[in-house]
């Protein structure tokens, strides 16, 4: 397949892996512990597992799976708010498919649908807009989630709804921003990250320039990366090369799609519709300032939080769930007390076990019988 197979060439992968091994050996002469490289984005986590990349890397490199899955970081309280909206008989609640199974405090959207809520899966926010046009006597609320990757398409949908004067369409806005989350991780003393593989899709929108703060203030190398196996291996190699040459820079491996300044059209649409929230709660990470987006007052007519009442409560995670530590990269999924026992993709306790981009789901799905996965402790679930 053109533009895909070129990035999955086993021979090129072998050549890259050899170079990674050489660089890693060279760097490790002066180091006592493995080099910890975090991939922020869940899409990268998924690819790493799907292609078995982690097992091909030298032991001196440890990949840490970060908080870049928009489903995983959605806090229970916001899920409860979404479910409350969905249970309103006036509302058709439109959502992306992979949010359906995420547990709220009482139930998931899938369970709410079984309980009678009119919840419909869409592939794009524009599908929700069509739904509003087709159902003029109902309110259509779109559950907008995702990082800067999906925010522009949501913004353009709102602009379209405004242009059409659609009175029965609104957003439940849960868009989040990647850089404040990275800064929160770097400010956390528990973590000792050495470098980052930057998210490709987000960077298509925001560009590579905004990551400069990671290199300048935190002195960590960051390489914006594509999602194909060779993209990821090359990005790891580029991070190692920075180490070997004593640099901390923002580099762009995904230059075929990412421009330093990002996508101006997308950024303008976002700026027109959204503004930064003072605080947004992240599952496992708590409230992070400047980390979420909300709708500008000009578009309040399309803001479900203005049009409808939502409970707006903050709900603590299950006490046995250690998603927070996993999202921060402090724990590996199999080190969580309930991984693979009380918490499985069939019966997820935490969100990391739900999305295919979640680190726990990836370990469970692709590697639960691996040596690492086999170490988990079978502990009964408290409460």
């Amino acid at each position, binding site marked *: 397949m053109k533009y895909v197979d070129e990035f*999955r060439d*086993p021979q090129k992968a072998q050549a890259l892996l050899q170079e990674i091994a050489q660089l890693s050996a060279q760097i490790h002469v002066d180091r006592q512990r493995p080099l910890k490289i975090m991939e922020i984005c869940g899409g990268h986590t*998924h690819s790493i597992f799907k292609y078995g990349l982690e097992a091909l890397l030298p032991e001196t490199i440890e990949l840490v799976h970060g908080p870049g899955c928009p*489903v995983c970081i959605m806090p229970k309280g916001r899920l409860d708010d979404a479910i409350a909206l969905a249970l309103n008989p006036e509302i058709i609640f439109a959502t992306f498919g992979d949010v*359906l199974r995420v547990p709220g405090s009482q139930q998931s959207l899938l369970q709410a649908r079984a309980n009678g809520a009119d919840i419909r899966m869409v592939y794009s926010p524009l*599908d929700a807009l069509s739904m509003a046009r087709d159902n003029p006597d109902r309110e259509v609320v779109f559950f907008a989630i995702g990082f800067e990757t*999906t925010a522009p398409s949501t913004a353009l949908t709102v602009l379209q709804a405004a242009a059409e004067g659609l009175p029965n369409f609104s957003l439940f806005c849960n868009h989040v921003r990647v850089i404040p989350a990275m800064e929160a991780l770097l400010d956390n003393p528990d973590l000792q990250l050495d470098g980052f593989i930057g998210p490709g899709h987000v960077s298509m929108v925001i560009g590579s320039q905004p990551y400069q703060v990671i290199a300048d203030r935190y002195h960590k190398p960051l390489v914006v990366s594509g999602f194909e196996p060779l993209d990821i291996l090359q990005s790891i190699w580029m991070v190692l090369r920075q180490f070997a040459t004593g640099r901390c820079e923002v580099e762009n491996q995904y230059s075929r799609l990412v421009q330093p300044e990002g996508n101006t059209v997308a950024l303008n649409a976002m700026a027109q519709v959204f503004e930064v929230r003072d605080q947004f709660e992240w599952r496992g990470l708590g409230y992070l300032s400047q980390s979420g987006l909300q709708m500008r007052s000009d578009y309040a007519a399309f803001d479900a939080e203005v049009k409808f009442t939502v409970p707006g409560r903050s709900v603590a995670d299950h006490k046995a769930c250690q998603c927070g530590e996993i999202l921060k990269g402090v724990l590996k999924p199999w080190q969580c007390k309930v991984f693979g026992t009380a918490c499985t*993709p069939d019966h997820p306790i935490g969100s990391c076990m739900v999305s*295919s981009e979640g680190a726990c789901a990836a370990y469970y799905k692709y590697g*639960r019988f691996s040596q690492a996965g086999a170490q988990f402790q079978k502990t009964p679930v408290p409460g």
Partner: protein
Amino acid sequence: MTIPFPSNPSSHPLFQALDQSQHRRGRVGEDMITLSHGSGGRAMRDLIDDIFVGSFDNPILAQLEDQARLDLSVLLPLGDRLALTTDSYVVDPLFFPGGDIGVLAINGTVNDLAVSGAKPLYLTCSVILEEGLSVATLRRVVTSMKAAAIAAGVQIVTGDTKVVPRGAADKLFINTAGVGVIRSGVSCSAHHLQPGDAILINGELGNHGAAILAARGELALETEILSDCQPLHDLVDQILAVCPQVRAMRDATRGGLATVLNEFAQSSQVGIRLEERSLPVREAVRGMCELLGLDPIYLANEGKLVVVVPSDQAEAVLAAMQAHPAGREARLIGEVVAAPAGVVTMQTTFGAGRIVDMLVGEQLPRIC
């Protein structure tokens, strides 16, 4: 005043009209299914006569008894065990590139019989119709069923019709049960896999699942992917002719190849090792999967057969499969290993190994 009962009723015009009415072949006059078509009365009889008995035309069904009566003398020479299966079909949309719900309902049940090593013979057809379904749609589906039954060499010998109020079902649901006779000496079972056995598939993975996704029209994708819906009984004949010792066969429908192999591994308590580079997937299906974050090994198929045979027979079986139109793209895709028991692993194109787990819930497209 009382009207005297005619002394010779058969010559009376009233009774003659009644007699004609009882012997006429029923016809459906309406354009749409209504609740009266499920009431058990004349409208239902007309529907059954017109649409089902007329199409499926065979002497066993024409008896219109409450059960099909099957002649043992036909069954006995064909083998030594009966295979009985049932499946319900609720696909949306009813018509899709490469098939429709009627073809699925016949081929699905034919294939469930065939993979046991049975010769499929008789099917039932039970329909649940939503009030408001167009009669033309039903007619079209039943015509497809008739053609598929002829192609598969089976007869539809009994059935049932129910009509439910609008909203209580989605247009049309079909259940088909099937009876076949298992050839003597053939013993295919998910419990019979042994380390060293070879695993084969008769063609490209995921075409049906991808065709249905595209046909739903929610993705605005233009593809030429056709469902692979086809009967497999003849291919099974060819396979058993060269290798009666087939360990296991199963058609990979919902849950795809991955689900079948996990079931095999768990039932036989063996490991299964797949070679990623050997898995046949059409380019358009790969493209759609890339776009949506789906995996073709979990996508549904309706004409794909997973066959496990002793390794020394693998080449002969592969050649027999490739010589058949339903197996032209057949491949050897993996092997049975002793450990880890109950687990399917895949050797990726990079030489790394990973688990291929059972599907949890349905595959849901990723956000980004």
